[in-house]
């Protein structure tokens, strides 16, 4: 018999398969969408650790992504081999998140959200002003990947898929381990979590570091893919908003939610870009508002049976 878990596993495997097969079956435009989906899925899965499991509304994704871009680019420009540069970016961003988390995770709720946005701006300003190292506003050229456009796209796709897979596997592990359980406790009632013996500071820092780690790698790979980075592109505040919206769309704190949300969001966005060139941002805003009001726990948590059943008075008393 097929259990829900089997269906979910099959669905995820199928989804990875479809994304991985795009180079064989489709044109470069579709591959590009697949890369974008894999990239955002990895970042959404990352954000899910801090925003979903721990319930801390972090907007520092763009900071982690941007630092990843720059560390990867600078390392490559100084002659470090490609893969080592990506690894270096990952390590650097993780260490940065641990150090930063120890300070910023003392804030809660709205204060944490504002603090995490400020991080993005501060890092962006530092990178813009430190011209000697980062090229300032002129940006940096990153050594191009070898091979023609087709080969580059295929390579980047598989690397992004590998990062997405790694993030997914770590999500499953965390979900089943003490860490995931402890983070859920923190998200629901931090004081009570403290009182049952959870070292909340360490748990939150771990979640924050996990939310940074894969973004760092994604940033470095992205820099190698596009070949040129500048502060506005790398530290785009829109990225910090999009990624949480994706997770909320799919279902925050769940294992599959980020993947569903990222896939759905990227395809929706692509559709609106292509069809409503002038209105796509307004539509994006509309989706966010719709989400907040009507889907507070995401696509995964929708009770579809209830949705299609007419509400009888009995149901209403039950709900009250």
């Amino acid at each position, binding site marked *: 018999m097929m259990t829900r878990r089997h269906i979910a596993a099959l669905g995820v495997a199928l989804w990875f398969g479809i994304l991985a097969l795009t180079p064989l079956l489709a044109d470069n435009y579709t591959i590009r969408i697949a890369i974008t989906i894999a990239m955002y899925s990895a970042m959404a899965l990352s954000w899910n650790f801090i925003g979903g499991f721990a319930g801390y509304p972090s907007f520092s994704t763009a900071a982690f992504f941007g630092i990843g871009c720059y560390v990867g680019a600078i390392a490559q420009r100084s002659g470090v081999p490609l893969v080592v540069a990506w690894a270096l970016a990952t390590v650097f961003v993780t260490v940065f998140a641990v150090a930063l988390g120890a300070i910023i995770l003392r804030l809660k709720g709205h204060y944490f959200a504002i603090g995490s946005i400020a991080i993005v701006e501060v890092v962006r300003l530092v990178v813009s002003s430190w011209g000697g190292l980062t090229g300032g506003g002129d940006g940096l050229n990153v050594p191009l990947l070898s091979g023609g456009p087709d080969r580059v796209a295929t390579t980047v796709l598989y690397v992004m898929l590998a990062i997405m897979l790694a993030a997914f596997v770590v999500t499953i592990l965390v979900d089943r381990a003490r860490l995931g359980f402890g983070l859920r406790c923190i998200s629901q*009632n931090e004081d009570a979590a*403290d009182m049952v013996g959870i070292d909340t500071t360490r748990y939150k820092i771990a979640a924050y570091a996990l939310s940074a780690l894969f973004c760092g790698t994604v940033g470095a790979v992205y820099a190698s893919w596009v070949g040129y980075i500048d502060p506005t592109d790398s530290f785009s505040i829109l990225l910090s908003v999009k990624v949480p919206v994706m997770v909320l769309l799919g279902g925050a704190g769940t294992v599959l939610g980020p993947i569903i949300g990222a896939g759905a969001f990227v395809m929706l966005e692509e559709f609106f870009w292509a069809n409503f060139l002038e209105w796509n941002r307004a539509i994006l805003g509309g989706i966010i508002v719709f989400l907040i009001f009507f889907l507070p726990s995401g696509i995964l948590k929708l009770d579809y049976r209830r949705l299609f059943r007419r509400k009888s008075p009995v149901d209403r008393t039950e709900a009250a």
Partner: protein
Amino acid sequence: MTEILRLENVSKAFGGIRAVNDVSFTLNEGEIVGLIGPNGAGKTTLVNLITGVHKLTGGKVIFAGQDVSRQKPFQAARRGLARTFQIVQPFPAMTVLENVAAGSLFGGGHTAMADARQAARAELDFVGLGAVADQPAALLSLPNRKRLELAKSLAMRPKVLLLDEVNAGLNAAEIDGALSLIRQIAARGITIVIIEHLMKVVLSISQRILVLHHGELIAQGDPTTVVNDPRVIEAYLGAKFAARFGMTPPAAPLAPEHGAPHV
């Protein structure tokens, strides 16, 4: 009797207000001790000082021979200093069982989830919540939420359990149920500090009573002596009434018919 917890000259000031002032006492293993005092006497602050929620302004807390004055709440929990909250603090979206499993996993020293769940189920049966183990905690009634708090604390395998008004908001029948539960917990060898407004509850269950007033420990001893202590009567009833009582102390301890004195 072996000493388990000792407070030495413990003080806490919030700005200019001394919420707890120079409090010293000792708890022995397996005792049930009542901590009473009028509203704002510093009872909850004292619990917060013992469990590391607040930092001490002065003095020392010694638990099982170890100075734990600077501990954090999660360390207190792991050491075996558990507490319940005056306002219940469940993890609302989790099931009742998961709530208790959190206690046994993080505070009770179980490392495997399966063990933690098993221990949690045992505690739920003990407090009489076995039947609702798989319900979301948010759906429980108030008396059951209080029981959940107890089960969660017990799952942490505490040596000392601080019960901050576990009976507040319960009716007479529910209080009787809660009291017999507390006696059963004490029978397991756990030292219990019961913080309570209701005199009836404290007097009927405590072997010893500590009285706080304006952050100071004004009396301690067995229930009868403490209740007849003029300073305690003054703290609860005010100087005017105390003058009347002080001349002719009542023969029996303050009976429950006299009502809860703080009202």
